[in-house]
């Protein structure tokens, strides 16, 4: 029978098929753990006297609560420090591998898995974090789980699950210069809505997707959850295999050959049936920014803030009016006229080396707009090391940006990097919910290129608003890898 990519990965992990309405039991290949959603799961194991079944399929890192400054000093916030200490103690007690703050392999959990070569095509990957969908970029079935499920996976390496529906999202054509995979996913969410993907696994396909680098694909899959989907996937191809080859945990020798042979079968069959289909033309895209308080409230940068009275649907009208009140915006204001206080470049969505390279290319030789705070936060310590090896940190510092240690940072208000009430940010992260980046903080979600241009001008901007040097090739801004300034070291 013809199958979709998601169905093939599902079938390959069936420990036991459910009957009479009971769920299927699925095997989990890789379990990523962090400090916030794991403490009660480990506690549950202790209370029931159960061990971690497969510590060798489990890896922990510290990211949500960790500071990005003074990481060698004790964590000031006691709750955060307790959660970190608890994770360290649990990892030691249960024999789980952990990469702690200060370790070269520490970083955001969704960067650590891929950069170590642990995330691969055809795996099932779970983590107590909704952005686990990131790993779907490799053709893995990857999704976030709750604390009870974390305990379930620790104890059994399986999860009882009922099958998801499948949705094909096809992006045809070529991305225009100055647009990135972030603009693709923001446009998709604006099109299908924050609930449009509920109950579905999204499969991204089409020419524009195929041309994206691995990191750009990760940005798209990362935000699948923002469309309400549990997971997003992209069929593996040569780009995937190239990214993986030679990484610390990538298969070697005969195992590599067997793996690649299998991975090549991981694509939706031509006659596979999806439960829903969406089509986008990449050529129609331009840099996208959000104006409201959910990721679906986004528009092309050339547009203006919506006027609630013009919105036909009453529910949408009320939601928009409420969002504008929170955001402190007037309907009808051109998006380009919005002044920001802070620019945040980082997170599991856009804190990778390619993101930092493309930002550096825009910032090089410039200085930041007055009164704008610019934070550049690598997704992992390895990304930081790589950026420093390429001299990107010097470009950021000369521009006037702060160059930080790795972590979730200002993506969420759980660590010291937060917006003050009323402070407005252009942010490369994934959620613009009320209070997400700090109580009363106002978030505009943007691509790294828009973030960089905004840092230069102080208002929401795209690279086309800048007088770019002739030697800057705009074509390299489409998310494809830039030529490294020094030898790559597998970040």
């Amino acid at each position: 029978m013809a199958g979709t990519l998601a169905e093939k990965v599902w079938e390959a992990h069936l420990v036991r098929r459910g009957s009479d309405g009971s769920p299927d039991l699925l095997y989990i290949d890789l379990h990523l753990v962090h400090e916030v959603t794991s403490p009660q799961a480990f506690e549950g194991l202790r209370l029931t006297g159960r061990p971690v079944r497969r510590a060798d399929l489990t890896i922990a890192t510290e990211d949500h609560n960790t500071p990005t400054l003074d990481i060698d000093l004790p964590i000031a916030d006691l709750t955060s420090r307790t959660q970190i200490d608890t994770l360290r103690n649990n990892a030691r007690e249960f024999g789980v591998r952990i990469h702690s703050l200060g370790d070269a392999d520490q970083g955001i959990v969704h960067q650590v898995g891929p950069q170590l070569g642990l995330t691969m095509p055809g795996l099932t990957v779970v983590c107590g974090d909704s952005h686990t969908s990131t790993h779907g970029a490799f053709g893995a079935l990857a999704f976030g789980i709750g604390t009870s499920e974390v305990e379930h996976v620790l104890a059994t390496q399986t999860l009882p699950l009922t099958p998801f529906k499948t949705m094909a999202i096809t992006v045809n054509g070529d991305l225009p210069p100055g647009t990135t995979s972030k603009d693709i996913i923001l446009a998709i969410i604006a099109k299908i809505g924050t609930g449009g993907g509920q109950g579905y696994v999204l499969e991204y396909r089409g020419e524009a997707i195929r041309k994206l680098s691995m990191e750009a694909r990760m940005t798209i899959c990362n935000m699948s959850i923002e469309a309400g989907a549990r997971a997003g996937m992209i069929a593996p191809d040569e780009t995937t295999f190239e990214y993986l080859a030679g990484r610390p945990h990538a298969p070697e020798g005969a195992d590599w050959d067997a793996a690649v042979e299998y991975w090549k079968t991981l694509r939706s069959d031509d006659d596979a049936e999806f439960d829903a289909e969406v089509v986008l033309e990449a050529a129609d895209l331009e840099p996208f920014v959000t104006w409201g308080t959910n990721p679906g409230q986004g528009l092309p940068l050339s547009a203006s803030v919506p006027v609630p009275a013009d919105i036909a649907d009453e529910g949408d009208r009320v939601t928009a009016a409420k969002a504008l009140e929170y955001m402190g915006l007037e309907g009808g204001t051109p998006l380009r006229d919005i002044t920001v206080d802070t620019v945040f470049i980082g997170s599991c969505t856009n804190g990778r080396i390619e993101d930092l390279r493309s930002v550096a290319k825009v910032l090089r030789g410039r200085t930041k707009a007055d009164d704008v705070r610019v934070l550049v936060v690598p997704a992992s310590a390895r990304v930081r090391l790589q950026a420093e090896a390429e001299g990107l940190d010097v470009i950021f510092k000369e521009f006037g940006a702060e160059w930080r240690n790795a972590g979730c940072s200002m993506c969420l208000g759980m660590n010291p990097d937060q917006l003050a009430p009323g402070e407005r940010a252009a942010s490369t992260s994934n959620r613009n919910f009320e209070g997400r980046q700090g109580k009363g903080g106002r978030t505009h979600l943007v691509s790294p290129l828009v973030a960089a241009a905004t840092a230069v001008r102080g208002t929401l901007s795209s690279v086309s608003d800048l007088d770019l040097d002739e030697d800057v090739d705009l074509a390299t801004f489409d998310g494809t890898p830039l030529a490294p300034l020094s030898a790559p070291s597998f970040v």
Partner: protein
Amino acid sequence: MEKFSTHTGVGVPLRRSNVDTDQIIPAVYLKRVTRTGFEDALFAAWRGDPSFVLNQEAYSAGSVLVAGPDFGTGSSREHAVWALKDYGFRVVLASRFADIFRGNSGKQGLVAGVVAQEDVELLWKVLETRPGTEVTVDLEAKTATADDVTVPFQIDDYTRWRLMEGLDDIGLTLQHEADITAFEEQRASWRPKTLPAKHLPSVPIEPARPVG
């Protein structure tokens, strides 16, 4: 999870409807790292009120809560069930429960029995007339008895079976451990393992410092 067949303990009449999970346990307690020790958080907003039922000596050691309709609405936090269990409750009886709360209860071994509202009133009358009266909950017979009053309660067969067998979700899955082991034995060798750990050479990470 402990097997549940019958339980006898002091009944606590909670004459309130729509007790949501924020009332059962406020959000401020969710930052804790433990799964036990939430007894002080249970009904935290009401515990300061001397007239609150659990602050009365006859009821303070209660283990069978008899509540008004729509118990456990609101957020999905599992902490609500943990708090009830940590306090010592084994059973909650009400005429209606929020779905997620009822599901969470089943996972954690707390019996959430649906009792007709007129029977809830009968139980309340006994428990309020004679504070400290014990209630016997028989899961096999699906009845709750306080003195001379016996009322039936409803619970779905699957949850009842799991509770009587003492099977949590994990316990149930582990019944199929042979299937899991068999699956693991045919797992392809290219699939990754986190241990033994492999990584690039370790290098010191320089701490970033505040600017200016």
